[in-house]
């Protein structure tokens, strides 16, 4: 009897602890790279581009986590991105409260709305779910587009920052060199946190629920609440990306909530490979630099993105991250064989 016990609990835990060690190491290296980046990247333009790319990577990560832990595809993720941006922008500009309050509210409000929404729509799978998220996203877009008193409707609104936020000089958020490090650090910490969550009992539970919702109930779990929590987490990350973008650009517009933005985020996640934690971020990074390569023909960037999506879905079912992992596995496999 005890042998079976140790098989389930013993070595498994040890492996987990080792992996956590590796995770911390990777996170530290990634953070260090971020702090070095401003010294390594010569041009301000590149830093600015990278900052924007990191914001996109964060948004794509939020789409990915919903797929990875919930098995759900959202066509309305930009809603939470934009909701974060708008909550922050509107509270700051209309002077409903301090910038600090706005920042907190901009994280809390989308998270809460997504959580409550999750309680209702978590059970609905597949295409109907995609349609619902699309509808919710477009409904919010319509509000932002039509309601001029809120934030100038379709013109959008500039969001001047106060001198300091949480005692930090506002220039910090608007200069590429510092904002890049800040956004990158947040992304690394987010991925680190998500990796820890995935390994926690809660993460394992959501994975089990994603695989088979009904059987999860038959082993004694309510499935709605865990799903709704993942919606909340996902929206929190999206809102964070939206706030970062608003801080950096000092501008909000309904386009942030539009379904084409949701679609782009989703494509980034799929191209990168949403089954792997860092896949969506990788996808966002790759597609962002496609835009730069497209250069003067930026008008056709969406076509490039669409084309990439078609090629990737047909040829790389696990996305670019899956490809990298496969190549790595092959390389290390060869190395192992060489050693023995």
């Amino acid at each position, binding site marked *: 009897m005890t042998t079976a016990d140790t098989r389930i609990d013993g070595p*498994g835990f040890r492996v987990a602890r080792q992996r956590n060690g590796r995770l911390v190491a990777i996170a530290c290296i990634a953070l260090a790279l971020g702090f070095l980046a401003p010294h390594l990247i010569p041009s301000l333009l590149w830093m600015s581009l990278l900052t924007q790319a990191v914001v996109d990577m964060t948004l794509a990560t939020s789409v990915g986590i919903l797929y990875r832990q919930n098995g759900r595809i959202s066509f309305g993720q930009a809603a939470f991105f934009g909701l974060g941006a708008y909550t922050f922008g509107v509270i700051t500009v209309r002077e409903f409260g301090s910038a600090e309050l706005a920042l907190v509210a901009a994280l809390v409000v989308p998270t809460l709305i997504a959580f409550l929404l999750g309680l209702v729509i978590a059970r609905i799978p597949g295409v109907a779910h995609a349609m619902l998220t699309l509808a919710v996203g477009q409904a919010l877009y319509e509000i932002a587009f039509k309601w001029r008193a809120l934030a100038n409707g379709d013109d959008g609104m500039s969001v001047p920052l106060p001198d300091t936020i949480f005692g930090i000089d506002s220039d910090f958020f608007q200069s590429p060199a510092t904002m890049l490090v800040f956004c990158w650090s947040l992304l690394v910490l987010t991925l680190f946190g998500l990796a820890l969550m995935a390994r926690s009992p809660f993460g394992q539970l959501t994975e089990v629920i994603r695989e088979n919702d*009904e059987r999860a109930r*038959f082993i004694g779990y309510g499935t709605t609440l865990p799903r709704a929590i993942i919606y909340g987490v996902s929206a929190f990350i999206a809102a964070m990306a939206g706030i970062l973008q608003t801080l950096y650009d000092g501008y909000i517009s309904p386009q942030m909530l539009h379904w084409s933005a949701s679609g782009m985020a989703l494509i980034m996640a799929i191209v990168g490979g949403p089954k792997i934690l860092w896949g969506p971020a990788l996808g966002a990074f790759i597609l962002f630099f496609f835009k730069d390569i497209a250069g003067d023909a930026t008008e056709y960037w969406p076509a490039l993105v669409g084309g990439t999506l078609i090629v990737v879905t047909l040829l790389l079912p696990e996305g670019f991250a899956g490809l990298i992992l496969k190549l790595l596995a092959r390389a290390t496999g060869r190395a192992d064989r060489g050693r023995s």
Partner: protein
Amino acid sequence: MTVALEGRGLSRAFGGFRALDGVDISVESGQIRGLIGPNGAGKSTLIDVLSGRAQNWSGQIFLDGEEITHLKIQDRRHRGLARSFQRTNIFPTVSIGMQLTVASRALGDSGLAEVVEALNLGPLLDHQAAKVSYGDQRRLDLALALVGRPRVLLLDEPAAGLTVEESLTLAGILRDLVRRWGTTVLIVEHDMEVIFSICDRITVLNLGKTLAEGGPDQVRRDPAVVSAYLGSQA
């Protein structure tokens, strides 16, 4: 003997078709009860209703004398009512060890080691469920129902798709385990050999109604049963 599981006036209709038509069933504590009947008799529907999977049904269900009619699937499970599935119902891409660990986190790990050992899942704990053989998946399905030592176990054709030999082995393992635990069992099975070898008492359903109930020998000799069910096979 106390009654462990009781259903009163259980009915369920799909459109005009009455899959279950006022079935009363009462299973005594510690008993292994067989549930047989021709295809479409309502056996699986009865299991679905009792386990909380079915929707739009009527009647009342009691577990150890307490009414559980309106309880959700997971709440019934926590009260000690578990079930297995005719069509393997597992978590395909999750490792077998992790599925069992997650289940035992909710239900307690008493008996987990025993289940893993009895069903010989020990060597497979690190494997992804989708990648093991069909027979292994059937045993995993059963193990997921056995985690936490349920007091009442509903088994919907646990041997479906197994060879004669495999199903008799499985029946033996099951019988030993539930006898040791004193689990109450309601088992649907097409394989008559399995049913008559492990059941204390048998309920026969036909066209959504109880046709007969009694000990194995009594049921075997019941003319109504023979004509409705056994006759068609003989």
